[in-house]
C-alpha cells in the first residue's frame, strides 16, 4: 500500500518530456518532487504563471509571487506571467498537457466529485471545474478507500459532482486504474504487495482485471 508520496511518485512517471502540467492542491503538489530528471516539464499555476519554480529561500519570499495554493514560490528562466482570463483560456483551449488533481469520489463512467460535502461548510470549487471540464488528460490522485473503509471508486458518485465523464486515469494507494470508454475501472497495476482481490473488494464500481496484473514499478 502506498503512502501519499508513493502515489505522487507513481503519478510522476506519467509525466513526459515537453509536458505543460497543472498540479492541484494536496498529493498532486507532491508530484513536483518526483518529476524524472532529464525531462523538461513546465508547471502551470492557474493564478497566472507558467514555469513554477521551487519555494523561495528563507527571507526571499515575494508576496506578489504565489501559486494557486497561495504558497510563496519562485519563477524559473523562461517563466511567463499572465492574467486569470488567459490562464483559464489556455486551460480551456487544452494547451495544458496534463492535469493532476485530487478527488473525494470517482465513478466508473469518469465522473468526479471533489469540491463539496453536503452539510459541511463549502469552500468552493476554485479552478477544479474548469480543469476537469477542459483538460484532455487528467490523472486523479486519491485514496481508494476512506477512513471508514468504504470505497471511493463507485458506480455513481454520491457527492455533488465537479465534472462528468472526464476522468481517464486514477492512482490510489492500492492501484493504477484507467476508466474505460464504455465505463468501468480497468486495473492496470497493483501497489506492491496488494492483491487483485483486495483491490476488487475496495472498488465498489465495476472492476475489470486481467489475469496477470503487474505490480507498480516506482523507481
Amino acid at each position, binding site marked *: 500500500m502506498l503512502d501519499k508520496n508513493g502515489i505522487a511518485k507513481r503519478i510522476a512517471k506519467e509525466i513526459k518530456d515537453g509536458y505543460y502540467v497543472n498540479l492541484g492542491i494536496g498529493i498532486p503538489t507532491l508530484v513536483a518532487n518526483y518529476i524524472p530528471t532529464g525531462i523538461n516539464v513546465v508547471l502551470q499555476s492557474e493564478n497566472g504563471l507558467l514555469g513554477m519554480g521551487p519555494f523561495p529561500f528563507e527571507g526571499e*519570499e515575494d508576496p506578489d509571487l*504565489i501559486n494557486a495554493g497561495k504558497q510563496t514560490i519562485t519563477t524559473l528562466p523562461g517563466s511567463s506571467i499572465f492574467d486569470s*482570463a488567459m490562464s483559464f483560456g489556455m486551460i480551456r483551449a487544452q494547451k495544458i498537457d496534463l492535469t493532476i488533481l485530487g478527488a473525494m469520489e470517482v465513478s466508473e463512467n469518469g465522473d468526479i466529485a471533489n469540491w463539496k460535502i453536503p452539510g459541511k*461548510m463549502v469552500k*468552493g470549487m476554485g479552478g477544479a471545474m474548469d480543469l476537469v471540464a477542459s483538460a484532455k488528460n487528467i490523472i486523479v490522485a486519491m485514496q481508494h478507500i476512506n477512513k471508514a473503509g468504504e470505497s471511493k471508486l463507485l458506480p455513481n458518485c454520491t457527492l455533488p459532482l465537479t465534472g462528468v465523464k472526464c476522468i481517464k486515469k486514477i492512482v490510489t494507494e492500492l492501484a493504477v486504474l484507467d476508466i474505460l470508454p464504455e465505463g468501468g475501472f480497468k486495473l492496470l497495476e497493483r501497489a506492491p504487495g496488494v492483491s487483485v482481490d483486495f483491490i476488487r473488494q475496495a472498488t465498489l464500481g465495476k472492476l475489470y482485471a486481467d489475469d496477470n496484473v503487474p505490480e507498480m514499478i516506482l523507481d
Partner: protein
Amino acid sequence: MINKVVAGADEAIKDINDGSTLMLGGFGLCGIPENCIAALVKKGVKNLTCIANNAGVDDFGIGLMLQTRQVKKMISSYVGENAEFERQLLSGELEVELIPQGTLATRCLAAGYGMPAIFTPAGVGTEVAEGKEVRNFNGKDYLMEYAFDADFALVKAWKGDTAGNLIFRSTSRNFNPVMAMAGKTTIAEVEELVEAGQLDPDHIHTPGVYVHRIFQGKDYEKRIEQRTVRKRID
C-alpha cells in the same frame, strides 16, 4: 492625455454607495486593493455585492468588510479559512454564489470586451449548470454564462501613470486586468504613480481607457497567506 488622478482612496470611492456591486482584484491576499478596502470600511457602506475570487481572511482583505457586515453577497470561486465568513453564511446573514474560477475570469473578460455571454464547459452536469442554457459545439457541451455587470472595479497595480495606464507585478496580476476592463467605473490604486510617458507603451497591461480614477496607494502590507520556503542547504 486624459488625467485620471485623484487624491487618494477616500476620494476615489466617494460615490460607492450602499447596494453597489463591486469587483475586487486579487487572488487570495495577493494583489488586493488594500487602500480601497480600508476606505470602504472607513466609509461604512453596506449591502455590497462583491465579485472577487476569494473573500480574504478574518482580519485582512475582504474579511475586513465582512467583520463590519458591509457585504450582502459574495460571488467567488473559493472562500477560504475565514471564521467570520462561515458564521455569517451559516446564519444566513451572507449570501454566497460560488462559480468556477475560469468562469469568473471569463465573465469579467466578456464585460471588458463587450461580449454579452460566453461559452464554457466548466460546470456542465453539475449543480453550477442548474437553470443555465447548455449548448453543444462539435460534440462537447458548454454552459452559456453572462458577462458581469459591476458598478465599480477596484484593482491594485504595481505602477500606473496619470493617464490611467497600469502595469502589474508578477502573480499579483491575476484578476486585476480583467476586472479593470469590466467595471462601469474602474478605480486603480498603485504602488508607484508616474507621469504619463514614463511607462513603455509596449509594457502596459491595462490601457488607461479602462481606468477612470487612479491614485498613489500607501502603507501596503501585502500579507503572505502561506509562507513556504526551502532551506539554503538544499
